């Protein structure tokens, strides 16, 4: 769901990270007050329009919804079973708008800007002597390594498929977990080799 940063210098790239995050936060608060599916359609148009301003690469980002179709299908099915189909559409439209908006921020914001923007949220930790840098770095690492974990999974799947013929199996989960843990060990070493999460500053 979290896509890679799109290289570029569009007006969305130049908008401050804090402002973008704030807008998404406010929009999600507002959208959760709304239940009519008719309100979401114009919202959707606006978000898709924003992607269009990034050009073809921006519109290609919309493909990320494909990965969520199963999830949306299940949601819709549940609502249909409980007799609230229209509400189901509203829920899904709201999710689509919010996911697209959040993704728009993550593809147009450099990670260190994002870090700078979320740091104040962790500032209160410093009153108690904890480092605000640590959780912020944690957020950064999640963003960096989520795509890499997907890559590990697809490599495992290829290895499995090449010898079994079938694509998916629950059997892939334990090796995935082990490989991810191993990767995180390596990443931890690499971080430590450059001074760890605390940094090396004497000041």
């Amino acid at each position, binding site marked *: 769901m979290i896509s890679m940063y799109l290289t570029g210098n569009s007006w969305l790239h130049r908008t401050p990270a804090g402002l973008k995050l704030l807008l998404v936060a406010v929009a999600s608060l507002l959208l959760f007050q709304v239940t009519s599916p008719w309100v979401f359609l114009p919202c959707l148009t606006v978000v898709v329009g924003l992607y269009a301003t990034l050009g073809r690469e921006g519109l290609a980002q919309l493909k990320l919804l494909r990965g969520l179709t199963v999830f949306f299908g299940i949601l819709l099915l549940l609502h249909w079973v409980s007799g609230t189909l229209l509400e189901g559409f509203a829920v899904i439209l709201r999710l689509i708008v919010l996911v697209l908006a959040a993704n728009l921020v993550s593809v147009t914001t450099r990670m260190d800007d994002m870090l700078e923007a979320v740091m104040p949220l962790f500032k209160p930790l410093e009153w108690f002597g904890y480092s605000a840098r640590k959780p912020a770095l944690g957020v950064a690492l999640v963003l960096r390594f989520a795509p890499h974990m997907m890559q590990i999974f697809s490599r495992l799947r290829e290895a499995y498929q090449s010898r079994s013929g079938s694509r998916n199996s629950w059997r892939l989960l334990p090796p995935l977990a082990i490989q991810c843990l191993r990767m995180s060990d390596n990443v931890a*070493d690499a971080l430590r080799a450059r001074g760890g999460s605390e940094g*090396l500053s004497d000041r």
Partner: protein
Amino acid sequence: MAFWPKKKNHDRNRICDPAAIPYAEFHGVGLSIGSRKVLSGLTLSLKEDRVGVIGLNGSGKSTFVRMLNGLRQPDCGSLKLFGALAEAAAPELPRHVGFVFQNPDHQAIFPTVEEEIAFGLTQLGVARDESRKRALDFLTQHNCEALAPLPIAELSEGQKQLVCILSVLVMEPRLLVLDEPMTSLDALASRRIGDKLRSLPQKIVMVSHDLSHLEGFDRVLWLEDGGIRMDGAPFEVLPAFRADIDRRSGVKLELAAL
């Protein structure tokens, strides 16, 4: 109190002497992981500009070089790095010893090249805007300014490894330790990275399976079963190592050596 964090970093005194020669002194050093003895009875000191480390898989090479940067601590014997005992020096070592890992995908922490380079500077206490500017200057200095805005995931393997090396060099270490940096590179990229390394003013300790990279080095250590099998100039050690490989591969399939 357990959950009250200790005050760190700020009142730490520097204990290493970056100009110390030898920069590493091993005396009877051993290290076990679980019940397995990975290294034992190592006694040697390093002062050369270029030191190569060779040996088969599992001979203890990676653990050996990790000790140089404080990533692993010996559990017996004494190890001095830049004149200070390794354990006490550990928090300060990343400042003096840069470490480049085998797999660039495990080393690059940030999504874009510029951020990755700037990270080393912010680690040293440089303010963010300043670090970004200096990262760009540094990339320009190394003729890599075109890479700056690119996502690391989209680089070629050679470019990735170059970025990893630069992200460590920007911290201006005295010693650069590389653990099989050429493994994932094609022949040309491997040659280019080799040339780059040769041009650096830093002292270098490098693990390599490609012996040709070590020909011009000052000293080569051949590790076997956690100890030194041979230690000397490349023209002595490399042929002996090659001969040993030929001898062992010629006889019969030794499962233990695979």
